[in-house]
Every structure is written in C-alpha cells, then in structure tokens.
C-alpha cells in the first residue's frame, strides 16, 4: 500500500518535471528565437469603424508585418482613403520581456512598418504620425505569454 502510494508520488513528480521542462523550452523559444508567435485573436482589439480593426500584432523581437497584419492595414487604408480629412498616429509597442531602450526603438520600427504599408496603399504620408511607447503602455498588464503577444502591437489612433 505504502509502496503503491510512493509509486504514484514518484510518477507525479516525474510528470511535473517533464511538464516543467516543456514549459521552459517553450518560453525560451518565444523570447530568443525567430518564432512566429504574433497574436491572432480578437481580445483587446478595438475598431476604427465597422469591420476596421485598430491594431496589428508582431512576433517576438520582430517588426515584419504578418499576413493578418497586412489584411488589417489594407482595411485601414481603404477606410482612411474614404475619409480623407482623418489623420492618425500609429502607436508602436513592445512586450515587457526586453530592455527599455531597445523596446523604444523596436516600437518605432513596428509603427514605421505599419506606416509604410498604409502609404504604399495610397494613404498620404503627411496624414500619418508615428509614436513609440516601447514597453511603457501594455494593453494587457499580465505577465504571461498571451499578454506579451497582445502587447507586441501597433495601434492606429485617430487624432482629429
């Protein structure tokens, strides 16, 4: 009886260690290598107009636009061309798992990537400003992989 229980405990311990190892492995991949971990859900997303999402998401340490991002930015470009008096600021953000100064630069690079896409889709450059907040303004304040993916973003904000 006692031995049986001990066996169960041992098995549980092995499982825990195994799962722990997996979790560590995964976390490593998301912060230090070129993973495709851009957020694809709809939480935190707001809308500039019906069917026009206000933000796009990025992979860890990356500023390349995903295909979901270009779809969203395409809708934003159409909306902005239909409303030619509107101006916007593109706010670039990073997750909290990086040094503050590098994240400021990364936020600027992300917002510029979005800006260039809008321009190449016919929005006049003088209607778009870029503002990086680095990791200073998370959309989701939790410290987990989901929150970090929601915080690696560029948000299009109307200024008039």
């Amino acid at each position, binding site marked *: 009886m006692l031995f049986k229980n001990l066996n169960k405990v041992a098995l549980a311990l092995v499982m825990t260690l195994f799962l722990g190892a997996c979790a560590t492995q995964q976390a490593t991949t998301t912060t230090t290598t070129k993973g495709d971990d851009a957020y694809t859900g709809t939480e935190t997303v707001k809308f500039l107009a019906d069917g026009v999402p206000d933000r796009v998401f990025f992979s860890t340490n990356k500023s390349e636009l995903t295909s979901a991002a270009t779809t969203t930015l395409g809708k934003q470009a159409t909306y902005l061309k239909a409303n030619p008096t509107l101006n916007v600021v593109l706010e670039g953000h990073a997750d909290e798992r*990086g*040094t*503050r*100064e590098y994240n400021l*630069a990364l936020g600027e690079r992300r917002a510029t990537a979005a800006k260039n896409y809008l321009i190449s889709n016919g929005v006049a450059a003088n209607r778009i400003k870029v503002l990086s907040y680095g990791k200073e303004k998370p959309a989701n304040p939790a410290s987990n992989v989901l929150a970090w993916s929601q915080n690696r973003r560029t948000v299009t904000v109307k200024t008039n």
Partner: protein
Amino acid sequence: MISDKIYERLTGEKGYFDSRIIYVSETGPKVDKKKRLAVMDQDGYGVKYLTLGNELVLTPRFSPTSQQVTYMSYFKNLPRVYLLNIETGIQDLVGDFPGMTFAPRFSPDGKKIIMSFAQEGNSDIYTMDIKTRVVEKLTDHPSIDTSPSYSPDGSYITFNSDRSGFQQIYTMKSDGTNVKRISFGEGLYGTPVWSPRGDLIAFTKLYRNKFYIGVMRSDGSGERLLTENYYQEAPSWAPNGRVLVFYRETASDSSGRGGGAKLWSIDLTGYNERLIQTPTDASDPSWSGLLSGK
C-alpha cells in the same frame, strides 16, 4: 565624508557614500503608470521629486561633472531627450531632431550627450555638444543601435545593436570607427555601461527567459553573471566601480496585479545583493559622481 574615508581605509578602494542616485518613481496601474523623476542619497534617504508626473519620463542619467541630468520625456507626446539642472530646475530640449530621441548619457567630461535618434524605423547613435549644439552622427546602419555609453577616458563607446539579427554588445572608437562586436555568449545582450575604472562593461542579458546583470572585460572576455531573476536590467556603476545599482521587476498575475519595480544594488563580486528602500516603486537608477569632487 567620513564614511568614504573609513571605506577607503578598510578596502583600499575609494568610497561612494557621498553620492546620489536619480531614478524614476512609479505609481498607479501597470497599463497607465505615473512616472516621476526622483533623486535621493545613495542609501535611499532624502528623496526629492523633480517632475510632477504629468508626462511619462524615462532613463535619467547624472552628469559625471555637474548637477545636471539628462533624461527622456514624453512632454506634449513628443518623446525627446532633455537636460535638467536639478539645482535650478532649468530644463532644455536636447537637439532639434524630427523624431524620437532616447537613451541619453553624458560624455565623461560632461560636455556632450550621446543618445539614439529613431527615424523611419531605424535607430542610430548621435552626440550633441551641450554648449555649441553641434550634432554628430556616429553610427549609420539599418539596424537598431542604442544604449550608448562612453569609456571613462572618452576614447571609446560601447553600445547595443541588433545588426547581427539579435541584440548584442559592440564597441567603437568615439568617432564611430572600428566597430567591433564583443558579446558572443548565448542569449541577448543589452544596456552596456562602461565602468568608471575602464576595465569592465556591465550589461543586461536575456537567456532562457531569465534576466541577468553581468560584467565582461571591454574586449568581451571574462563574462561573469552576478545575479539572475525574472526581470532586471539597466545597471549603473557606483563612482568607485565596485558596486552596481539596477532595477528588478516582479511578474504580475493573470489579472495584471502584483508586478512592480524596485531598486537593488550588488557588489562586483556578486555578493551583498541589497534592496534600496524607496517610498514608491522605482526603476532606471543612475549613480552620480562623488559630490565633493575628486
């Protein structure tokens, strides 16, 4: 100062008690933190607030030669580098750049500010002479170049770049030539800062989802990690080059509560890690030079 004399007698090293630390005081929820510049004695006493918290302020750094600090502010939603005299309260914009300027530090003679300027998705390193306002561009690379710091004799600069694909530490001559990568370990390296003794560079390292404060020689050899934690960064040297101050942040729970930043110091040996008590949460510490001069 007597405590500095005692330290010197006991250790054979210059003391650092007669010095101050400038930092960013943090209050409010994580999604909308109120940040104010604050200055205190190096032991945490005598806290004085220098800004009201109406705009976001980041990364203050002391001048090694005067009561001036340089920092970044989002005044009028324009993220720019400023210069502030903490005795007179007089504040100045540094340079006339069309985009974001950030990551400022003084040159060792206190005459220049070195910083990054971001434009069109590219951050490069610039200096501005405080008196003549002459601006010089030191790096010209499509990658992110930031977190510059001078060697104590002013002849070299260490900085952070992702030109290899990931954040690594580099050195170059102070005219921007002779760029050399010096960090080659696994993981990402950031915030290099040159010791006032000239021999070591302190840095932040991200490796397997943990953050480390470490030191290496200025040629990149002899890497030594002093402390490991969930999140910590931005080391700053005590004037005697024996102690580092940095900030450490704890994780928040799934509803975003419980995280917060505090200031810590640690000896170069990796021993004597110590929390510096502050009235509020605190980040981005920077040590002054000795107040009584050399």
